[in-house]
């Protein structure tokens, strides 16, 4: 009997020592940054041993999960507006990287395509319905466009990707602003809806004549053709690390809640955006332990580190500028556990 008690107590000690060493963090939300988070969280695990699981369920789903207290952090591409911020306990937005929403298309024999915001808006509003439309032909003089019906593909679920896309089109098309407007889910009445970035990418990949807006990495990894979009300087720009970085050169507010679409900078890709992690300022919610709170802060610092930021380019995202990192580090300092600062 004594032996057994000894054995049991040893096991208990071993188990408890295990649980203090590794902390498991859970996050959920935007699918847009998932390719980056996959590599970044893997690097974080290699460095600290802590495990981070992230469910790509859409930005809206992530926000709902954190307000229900079931995750440690939420991922979103659409920052919370003031109204929503007022409804819930104070949260902090942590930008983790920048990315582009790309317009990918499936059009046999067309490997290069220029588009303007106005044309994209009219396609999604059902006003331009054929690829050989004179408006599209006018800005693509070297391309033979086929006579084919355009199938616009959109996100059927609430999505930060949609929010960035709609924010851009609202800036460049008054008609869009008055009809579909802005938001994470819009009242699309033409085209086909796909669930999640993979759903839209998959539909574009197998549908001749389709065009869809997708988080860039999903288009790159499937090898989809990507349109060059005209920015406010009149240049047709392909999305890449340099052109996304160029979009973030304006003033960034202290809480980093800003859309950087339709940037005025030369060489900027106009449908760029931050993606954020949203955490509660007060980390002692839903009976969370101090270890989890500390690990969350540690993870956020890791994501801002040079090591993690340098990973962004490998998956076609862009690193944050030093100014944004400085702002964000100051914001992380505000996080508390039962009223006391963490660290």
């Amino acid at each position, binding site marked *: 009997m004594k032996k057994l008690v000894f054995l049991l107590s040893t096991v208990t000690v071993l188990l408890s020592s295990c649980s203090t060493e590794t902390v498991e963090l859970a996050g959920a939300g935007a699918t847009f940054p998932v390719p980056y988070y996959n590599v970044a969280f893997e690097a974080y695990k290699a460095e600290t041993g802590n495990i981070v699981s992230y469910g790509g369920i859409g*930005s809206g789903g992530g926000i*709902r999960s954190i307000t229900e207290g079931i995750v440690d952090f939420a991922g979103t591409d659409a920052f919370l507006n003031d109204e929503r911020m007022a409804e819930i306990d104070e949260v902090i937005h942590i930008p983790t990287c920048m990315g582009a929403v790309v317009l990918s298309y499936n059009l046999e024999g067309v490997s290069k395509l220029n588009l303007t915001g106005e044309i994209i808006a009219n396609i999604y509003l059902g006003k331009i319905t054929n690829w050989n439309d004179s408006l599209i032909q006018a800005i693509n003089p070297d391309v033979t466009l086929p006579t084919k019906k355009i*199938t616009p593909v959109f996100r059927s679920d609430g999505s930060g990707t949609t929010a960035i896309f709609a924010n851009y089109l609202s800036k460049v098309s008054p008609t869009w602003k008055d009809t579909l407007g802005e938001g994470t889910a*819009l009242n699309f009445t033409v085209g086909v*809806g796909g669930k999640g970035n993979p759903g839209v990418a998959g539909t574009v990949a*197998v*549908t001749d004549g389709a065009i869809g807006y997708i988080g860039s990495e999903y288009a790159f990894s499937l090898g989809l053709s990507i349109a060059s979009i005209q920015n406010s300087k009149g240049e047709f720009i392909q999305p890449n690390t340099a052109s996304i970085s160029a979009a973030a050169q304006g003033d960034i507010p202290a809480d980093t809640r800003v859309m950087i679409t339709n940037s005025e900078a030369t060489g900027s890709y106009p449908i760029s955006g931050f993606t954020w992690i949203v955490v509660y300022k007060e980390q002692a919610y839903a009976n969370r332990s101090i270890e989890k709170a500390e690990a969350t802060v540690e993870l956020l610092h890791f994501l801002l580190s040079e090591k993690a930021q340098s990973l962004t380019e490998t998956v076609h995202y862009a690193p944050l500028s030093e100014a944004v990192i400085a702002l964000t580090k100051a914001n992380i300092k505000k996080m508390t556990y039962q009223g006391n600062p963490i660290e």
Partner: protein
Amino acid sequence: MSDKAFKTLLWFAASIILIITGGMLYSLTSGAIPAFKQFGFFEFLSSSEWNPTEGSEKYGALAFIIGTIITSILGILFCLPFSLPVALFIGEYFKGKKIASLLGTIVDLLAGIPSIVYGLWGFYALRPIIMSLGLSPQGFGILTASLVLGIMIIPYAASLSAEFIRMVPNDLKEGAYSMGATRAEVIQHIILPISGSGIFSSYILALGRALGETMAVTMLIGNANGIPNSIFDTGNTMASIIANQFGEAYGLKLSSLIAVGLLLFLITAIINFIGKLIIKRNNL
């Protein structure tokens, strides 16, 4: 176990089901009330606008109700030419034979295939056919969803119909044969009139099943809001709008989705009730 204890156990089990169903109805209703209050019950039913844009939020279920009804009824129509012959084959022509039970088992197997598999089949196999026939430029839409629905509900309609066909009294059929009727005439004049209401009710029950199908329909219908212009157009059903948007919904949108769920619950319940009523009235 004593009889009394057994009886108590049965009571307990039965009442739990009742409580769960009642609880679901209650939580659906209480969740839906904010939407009904905001828009009005009849306005919610008759408006086809589904606008989640902040500031001008407005939700109405009409487009999804219509999408649900069109896909389900088309599904029944597509199912009919397959399920009725199968029912006659199993219930009359090869009644009791090995081949009938083999076919019956295979048809029942269809019911066991997960709906996501039907969805994938529709996405990768059926959709390219629809596109190559030029019926729709992108292959998604009401038609594609209905075709897959039609196949999915074959087992529900066929098994029950076969049961009713099998129950047609033998002396009636023998009477007809003795008067020189051919098999086709027996089916036309004896079997179908007698088992007709039973067959009808089995299609009603299959319809109830089609109304609530979610996964396969969501993958194929195109998920565009708005009332479809034709069967080649894209649309949304009540189940697919919930599947698409429930995850991130909150506030008024969440309430509106729950209201759509409540309406679907009611429509399915009414359809099932009608089916059962017809079976009962004809005492089959």
